[in-house]
C-alpha cells in the first residue's frame, strides 16, 4: 500500500500537459552517479499483513497490563480516562500542523491557551509555553535560560535529580564553558548545608527536583531562599500529579518550574513521546524558549488566539533565538489539557491523595517484612527507596518477582554505585490493595 492516488495514467496526462517527455527529465539536476543504487528494503505489504507483524512484535513485549509493575523513576503508570484517547484521536487535531494560519487553527490555538492556563494554575507560576520535548530537555533549557540571563556560568544541581536528566544537561552544556556542580543527598534529600557552601555569586541557577528521584520531598522553601541570596534563579523540576496536594513552585518563589507531564494522560510508550512543560515568573516571559499562544481580537473585535512573542524564536531570530525548538509536543499537550479538564478541581486533589495513600500502604507493609528496610526516612509522594536486609540481594528479589508476574523496583545502583542493594518502588492510584498485597505475599515467602 503506498497511499498515492495518482495512477500511471494520471502521470501520463500530467507529463503531457507539462510537455515533458518522461519523468526522468525532471531529475536532470541529480548527478547520474547518484541515481545508481538499489534498495535492500523488501516489497510492500497489505494492511492485514503489516498489522500481523506489528501485533507479533508488540506481543513480544511484556506490557504493564500483563504484569503488576512497581516501576516509576520518571515514567509513571496512571489511569487514562477513555475520553482522552477518543478526543485526541480526532484527526482535526492530529493531522494539522503548528497553527501558522490562526483563522483555520483556532482549535489548536485555544487548546494551547487552555493548556498554558491549566499548567499555571497547577504550578502557581505566571506564564507557560506550549510544551517542550520532555522533562529532561525542559530542565536543560531552563538551565540555559539562566546562563543567558544572569551571564554567569555556574550551575548547581542536586544529585537527586533524575540521573538521565543530569546527563542531558551535561551533554548540552559541554563546550559552553559552564561549570556544573552536583550536590549529594546522603539522607535522601539534597544536602542543604553543602548547598549553602557551594552556591555563590557566580551561580546562575540552582536546580532541584521535587519529589526528587528517590521520591523524597525536598525543603524547597529553604533552597529557594539560599538561591535568591546570590542572585541566582531557582529552577524546580516537579511532578504535575503531585501538585494536586504538594506545595506548588509558585508558593516557594521558584523562578522557573519545569517537568515531565507524561503523567497527565499520556502512555508509557517505552519512554516517549512524553511532554515537557516550561513555566516561569512573568519577568522571564521574553526569555522563554518555545511556542506561546496569546489572546487577542480579530478585525471584527471577536476574541481569538494566535502564536505570539515570536520575536524570541528561531524562524525570526535565527542564531540569536532563545532556543532552536520548533516542533514540540502539541498533541500530548492536548491530551494533558483534556486529562486536567476531566479530572478537574476535586479530581486532581483526590488523585494526589490516592497516590499518597497507596504508596504509603505499600511502604508500610513492605517495611514489616524481613526483606527490606527503608533506605531513607524522608516524607515521600508516590515512590520510595528500600534497602535489602542482610545478605538478600535486590537483583535476585526482582528476578524472583518477575517469575511471579510482578515487576519490582528500579535498582538504584544502576545510576548510583554507592546505593547498592537498594531499589526504588512506585505505587500510583493504578495499584489496587489486592495487587500490593500480592507483592507482600510473594515477598513474605523469601
Amino acid at each position, binding site marked *: 500500500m503506498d497511499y498515492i492516488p495518482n495512477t500511471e495514467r494520471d502521470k501520463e496526462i500530467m507529463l503531457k500537459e507539462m510537455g515533458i517527455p518522461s519523468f526522468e527529465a525532471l531529475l536532470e539536476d541529480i548527478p547520474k*552517479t547518484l541515481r545508481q*543504487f538499489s534498495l535492500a*528494503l523488501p516489497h510492500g505489504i497489505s494492511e492485514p499483513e503489516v498489522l500481523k507483524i*506489528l501485533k507479533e512484535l508488540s506481543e513480544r513485549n511484556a506490557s504493564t497490563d500483563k504484569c503488576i509493575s512497581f516501576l516509576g523513576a520518571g*515514567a509513571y503508570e496512571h489511569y487514562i480516562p477513555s475520553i482522552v484517547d477518543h478526543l485526541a484521536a480526532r484527526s482535526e487535531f492530529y493531522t494539522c500542523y503548528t497553527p501558522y494560519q490562526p483563522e483555520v487553527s483556532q*482549535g489548536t490555538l485555544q487548546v494551547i491557551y487552555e493548556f498554558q492556563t491549566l499548567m499555571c494554575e497547577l504550578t502557581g507560576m505566571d506564564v507557560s509555553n506550549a510544551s517542550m520535548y520532555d522533562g529532561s530537555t525542559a530542565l536543560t533549557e531552563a538551565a540555559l535560560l539562566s546562563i543567558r540571563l544572569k551571564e554567569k556560568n555556574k550551575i548547581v544541581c542536586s544529585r537527586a535529580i533524575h540521573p538521565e536528566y543530569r546527563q542531558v544537561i551535561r551533554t548540552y552544556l*559541554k*563546550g559552553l564553558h559552564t561549570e556544573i556542580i552536583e550536590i549529594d543527598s546522603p539522607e535522601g534529600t539534597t544536602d542543604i548545608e553543602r548547598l549553602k557552601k557551594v552556591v555563590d555569586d557566580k551561580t546562575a541557577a540552582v536546580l532541584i527536583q521535587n519529589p526528587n528521584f528517590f521520591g523524597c520531598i525536598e525543603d524547597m522553601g529553604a533552597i529557594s531562599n539560599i538561591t535568591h541570596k546570590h542572585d541566582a534563579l531557582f529552577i524546580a523540576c516537579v511532578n504535575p500529579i503531585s501538585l494536586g496536594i504538594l506545595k506548588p513552585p509558585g508558593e516557594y518563589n521558584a523562578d522557573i518550574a519545569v517537568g515531565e507531564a507524561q503523567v497527565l494522560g499520556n502512555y508509557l510508550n517505552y519512554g516517549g513521546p512524553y511532554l515537557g512543560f516550561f513555566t516561569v515568573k512573568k519577568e522571564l516571559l521574553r526569555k522563554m524558549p518555545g511556542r506561546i499562544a496569546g489572546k487577542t481580537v480579530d478585525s471584527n473585535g471577536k476574541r481569538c488566539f494566535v502564536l505570539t512573542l515570536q520575536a524570541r524564536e528561531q524562524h*525570526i531570530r535565527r542564531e540569536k533565538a532563545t532556543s532552536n525548538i520548533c516542533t514540540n509536543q502539541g498533541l500530548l499537550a492536548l491530551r494533558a489539557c483534556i486529562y486536567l479538564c476531566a479530572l478537574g478541581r476535586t479530581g486532581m486533589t483526590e488523585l494526589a491523595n490516592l497516590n499518597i*495513600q497507596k504508596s504509603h500502604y505499600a511502604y508500610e507493609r513492605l517495611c514489616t517484612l524481613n526483606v527490606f528496610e527503608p533506605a531513607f526516612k524522608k516524607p515521600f509522594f508516590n515512590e520510595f527507596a528500600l534497602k535489602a536486609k542482610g545478605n538478600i540481594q535486590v537483583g535476585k528479589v526482582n528476578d524472583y518477582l518477575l517469575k511471579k508476574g510482578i515487576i519490582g523496583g528500579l535498582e538504584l545502583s544502576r545510576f548510583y554505585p554507592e546505593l547498592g542493594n537498594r531499589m526504588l518502588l512506585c505505587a500510583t492510584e493504578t495499584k489496587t490493595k489486592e495487587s500490593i498485597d500480592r507483592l507482600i505475599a510473594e515477598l513474605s515467602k523469601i
Partner: protein
Amino acid sequence: MTIKETKIMNQTEPLIFEISSPGRRGFTLPTCDVPEKSITNFIPQNMLRKQEAILPEVSEIDVVRHFTRLSQMNYCVDTNFYPLGSCTMKYNPKVNEESARLEGFTNLHPYQPIEQCQGILKLLYDLEQILKDISGMSAFTLQPAAGAHGELTGMLIIRAYMKKQGETRHKIIIPDSAHGTNPASAALCGYEVESIQSNASGLVDIKKLKDSFTRDTAALMITNPNTLGLFEKDILQICKIAHDAGGLVYCDGANMNALLGMARPGDMGVDILHLNLHKTFSTPHGGGGPGAGPIGVSEKLKQFLPVPRIEPKDNTYVLNHDCPNSIGRVRAFYGHVGMMIRAYTYLLSLGKEGICKVGEFAVLNANYLRHKLEKYYDIPYGKICMHEFVISAKRQKKKGVSALDIAKKLLDYGFYAPTIYFPLIVEEAIMIEPTETESRETLDAFATAMIKIAADIEQQPEVIQKTPKTTPISRPDEVKAAREPNLTGCPRMQVFSNLLIIIRATRLQR
C-alpha cells in the same frame, strides 16, 4: 472547474473555564481501597499546597463537546489540502495509528527488564536499518525528538569529532536560504554562524563556499533539495570542498521526501543527516508535534552517536550505554518510540517500490502544479523543481496584494495556506509543497483557485485584502497579542464571576 467559498467550520467556542460550574466532574476515580490516613501523617503541613489549583469543574459531556467543537475550528490534512511548503503535510495512514496503539507498545515502561522489551527493540533496530538503506548513511540513532533536536545532536557530534581530531574549529557555514533552526542549533552549541549568499540560480555559490570554508570552519550545514525546492546539482563538489578543508557536511533532511528512491545523501558525501519522521515518513504533525528527528552518520562519526545504542547480541537486542566517545545523552529514555512505530508501519506498507513511488509522485505533483501556475505568478528560481517550489507575489504586490493576502484568500476556498515569507531570499515568497498523496484533481482545484485569485487581483485587489471571510475568525490583531500579552485564562477571575452569578441567582430566588 469552478471554485467556491465554503463555510463549514464551527465558528465559536467558550474557554473551558467559562463553562465551569461548582461541583461538576468529568471523571470518577476508584475509591481508596487501602486504610486511609490523614495526609499530614505522611507529609508535614508546610510541604502541602495552601491554595488548591482552580481547575475547571465540568462534566464528561462538557469536556467531550468542548474539545470536539474546538477540533471543528481547525483545517487539517484529513479535511483540506495542506500545501505547507517545507512541512510535507502528506496523508497520515490510519493503520499507523492502529499499530502505535497496540497495548504491548503503549503500556511498556522504559526501565522494564530488557528481556521484556525485545519486540520494541527489534522494531527500533530494524527501523534504523531501513533508514540506513534509504539514506545511504552508515549508522542511525532514533533518539532526537524533532528535526531541530536532530540538528543539535548533529552539531554536538561535529564538535566531538573535531575535538578528537585535536581541532578547535568555531564556525559553521549556512546558506541564506536555510531554515531558521539551522543557525539556532549551531549557535546553541556555541558555534559562530556564517551565512553565505546563494547564487543567481538560488543554489550554493561554489566560489563563495571555497573562499569561506577555511580551517576555522567545522562544517557546512546544507539542505538538499534546498528550501527553493531545487536540487543542489553541485552537491558532490560541495561535499568535496568541505572535506578537502578538513570539515564536515551536515544535511538538513527536511526535504528528504523528494529524494526517496531517487538519490541518497550518504552517496553524496554527507556526513550527518537528520530525517523528520513527521514529514517524510507519514507520522502525524499533531498540531505541532510530537515529531521525531533521527540522525544518520557516516562511518567515522558512528562512535560519537548519543547513548544508549541499540545493538544485537546473541539473538537478542540490548541497549549499550558504554560508548566512550559518545556525545552523551540528548534526552531521557530512548526517544519518541510512538512515532517510530508509525514510521516503521509505513515503511513496511510501502516497501521498496512504494518508497520509490513517493519520491517520484512528490516531484511529479510539484512540477505539475508549478507548470499550472507559472503563467500567473513569478517563479524566480529554476525551470523545474523537486518536491516543492517557491513563487513570488511581487507582481501582485504592485497591485497592493501581498503573499499574506493570497494565503488568506486560499483559506476561503477551503485550502490551507502555503508557507509564506520563507525562504527569506524570495520577495513575497509563497512556498508550495503538494506531496505525493494528493490527486491530480486536487492539484487542479488548487491551481484554479490560485489562478482565480491572480485574476481577481487584477480586477478588484481590495476584495482579496479583506479575506478570509468564511473562517471562524477574521484576521487577528497580532500586534495587540504581542504588546499586551494575555497568555492565561485567569480561572480565579472566572470562578469569582461564576460565584457572582450564583449569588445573584440565589438573591433572585429569595
